[in-house]
């Protein structure tokens, strides 16, 4: 299949042509993934921290359940939310199915366990003296925990990066809950899936390269942020 070489060319063309439709899907992908990862961080970082520093009966079981949630297939998340958001479902009234909001919800569900787990791992590996040192310097419990977070920032950053990679690369949720509607919920991954199913392999791969390029830019940005 000569399409491996072709796709590189097509990718360059696509980027240079600055095609309106490509721009639109790039934007939709970025927008939904960013919203989802921010929400996932807001949910996952505190959960991971809490699981990391507190000790209670059933904690290990809870952690195992959280680990299991990482094996949640996108299609299953899609099905679950579909059941809720569809017109027949309990939240059907709001007509959220096939909107970016539905995608964001699904992707958040997907990324939160990942973020929580990795923050937990970072906290588990951290120096045990951090919290007590902060407390004896007069910090409140919250301030001490925030200091802990700063000390394990590499781990937290890794958590966010892995989560972001997960949501921007996923296709099941975007497909089921977004519906791959041209000009509104078509993301780069659903577009790739569509092109592939049309037999436009080179074009699909080219879109994949564009996606990787976008992810690279995001990661370079996060990298700069981290170095400051």
């Amino acid at each position, binding site marked *: 299949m000569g399409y491996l070489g072709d796709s590189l060319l097509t990718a360059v063309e696509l980027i240079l042509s600055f095609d309106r439709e490509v721009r639109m899907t790039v934007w939709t992908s970025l927008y939904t993934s960013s919203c989802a990862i921010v929400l996932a961080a807001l949910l996952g970082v505190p959960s991971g921290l809490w699981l990391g520093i507190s000790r209670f009966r059933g904690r290990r079981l809870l952690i195992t359940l959280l680990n299991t949630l990482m094996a949640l297939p996108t299609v299953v998340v899609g099905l679950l939310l579909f059941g809720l958001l569809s017109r027949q479902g309990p939240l059907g009234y709001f007509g959220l199915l096939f909107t970016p909001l539905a995608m964001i919800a699904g992707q958040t569900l997907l990324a939160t366990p990942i973020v929580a787990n990795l923050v937990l791992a970072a906290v588990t590996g951290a120096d045990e003296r*951090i919290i007590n040192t902060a*407390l004896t310097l*007069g910090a409140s419990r919250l301030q001490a925990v925030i*200091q802990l977070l700063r000390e394990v920032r590499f781990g937290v950053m890794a958590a966010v990066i892995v989560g972001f990679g997960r949501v921007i690369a996923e296709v099941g949720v975007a497909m089921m809950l977004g519906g791959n509607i041209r000009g509104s919920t078509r993301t780069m991954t659903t577009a790739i899936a569509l092109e592939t199913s049309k037999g436009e392999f080179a074009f699909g791969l080219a879109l994949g390269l564009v996606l990787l390029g976008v992810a690279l830019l995001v990661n370079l940005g996060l990298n700069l942020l981290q170095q400051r």
Partner: protein
Amino acid sequence: MVELKNIDLKRGDFTLSIERLLLQSGELYVLHGANGAGKSTLLQLLALLLPPERGELIYAGRLVHWSERRLRPLRQEITLLEQSPLLFSGTVEQNLAFGLKVRNIPSDKQQQRIERALETVDLQGFSRRSVKQLSGGEVRRVALARALVLEPKLLLLDEPTANLDAGQVTALERLLVSLPHRGMSIVIASHDTQQSPWLGGKIIRLQKGCLDKDESGLKAVADQQ
């Protein structure tokens, strides 16, 4: 200032049990005891970091409740220099600023106090240095400065002279003797049996988790109440 009553505190197989101990304001106490006697454990208890299984701790006349919300204002008056202190990643200055920031001290004042504290430990010019680039003795001095800069009412020092060179030890001893005059109470855990007479502090002796009742230092403490 602080009173302990019928305290039991377990750590693994070890138990710290103190029937009665009274520490008074503006005094300097030296805590002696062999390795594993429970000195660090006692200091962590006094720093309100380790709750006892049993017994009462009375701070400034009020019974201490071990709930986070109530502990915080008390902890702001107490600071512990740990035996092997942890510096937060970042610069020396950031470490010294931490305690000031959580006390909402205005930043110009912060700057002043940080400079003064660094002078006290003879580390002028180290403020921008990353804590990763410090020698062993420098680490301990930064941690000491980080405690001193807070001007706590109760200062707990766990072997503060370890790793310090002779000049630093003398300077620290001079400083420590002067602090009680400013109303600060100080408890120093120390192995250096030569040190305490020089410092003129009252001696508290720990042996296998218990206060040594026959020691003159403790008697003096117990008698005063």
